[in-house]
């Protein structure tokens, strides 16, 4: 049982990265590892609530719901506050489901400190 840190800098749908983050996190949690994710740059779009990916052509579960489930299963998800206010999202978290943490780079520093392994996607 160890801690996995993940950095993701891309948003949902346009790039596959967050799908891979979700896959890896699900598997890691199942194996009783701890997972701490830092979302930077466009990465902060991923937990945006009300994504309607199920209703449109994609017909799949939206990224925000996946991330909410990961949080419920114990994953820590931190969004970079600077990145999100730059892009017009609410610093108070009204765009995000409960449990998403809004933080600074000191949180990234802390995740790196906590992690036994770290990957960038």
């Amino acid at each position, binding site marked *: 049982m160890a801690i996995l840190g993940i950095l993701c800098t891309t948003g949902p749908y346009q790039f596959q990265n967050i799908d*891979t983050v979700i896959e*890896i996190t699900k*598997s*890691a949690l199942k*194996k009783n*590892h701890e997972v701490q994710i830092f979302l930077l740059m466009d990465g902060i779009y991923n937990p945006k609530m009300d994504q309607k990916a199920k209703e449109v052509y994609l017909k799949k579960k939206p990224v925000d719901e996946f991330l909410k489930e990961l949080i419920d299963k114990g994953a820590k998800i931190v969004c970079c506050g600077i990145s999100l206010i730059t892009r017009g999202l609410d610093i108070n978290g009204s765009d995000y489901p409960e449990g998403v943490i809004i933080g600074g780079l000191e949180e990234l520093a802390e995740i790196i400190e906590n992690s036994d392994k770290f990957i*960038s*996607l």
Partner: protein
Amino acid sequence: MAKILYLIDKKYGEEGLKLVKAVNSSGKHEIGVILIQDGIYLALREKKQIFKLVEEGISFFATKKDVNMRGLSEKIDRTNIKLVEYSELVDLVMEKYEKIISYV
């Protein structure tokens, strides 16, 4: 000596392979390379080089799901590259290897 895993996820991951070779040439480490997402295409474009690196003792992995989505299961040379589930990737990252180099 360390056990090092390279994670390559971009279709132009040649720079990553160069780093793998540079580390391998020191002969000090045990090296694995795992291709994910569009990194899979590297297995097509760098077939010969990967064959050579496998001969030199480097382990190559690719995520089965990414290979299958891309319709490449017949094109990937399984004698050189081992297909793994994402759950096995987690074991490689968390247990089998000590250092992870995400060259993404």
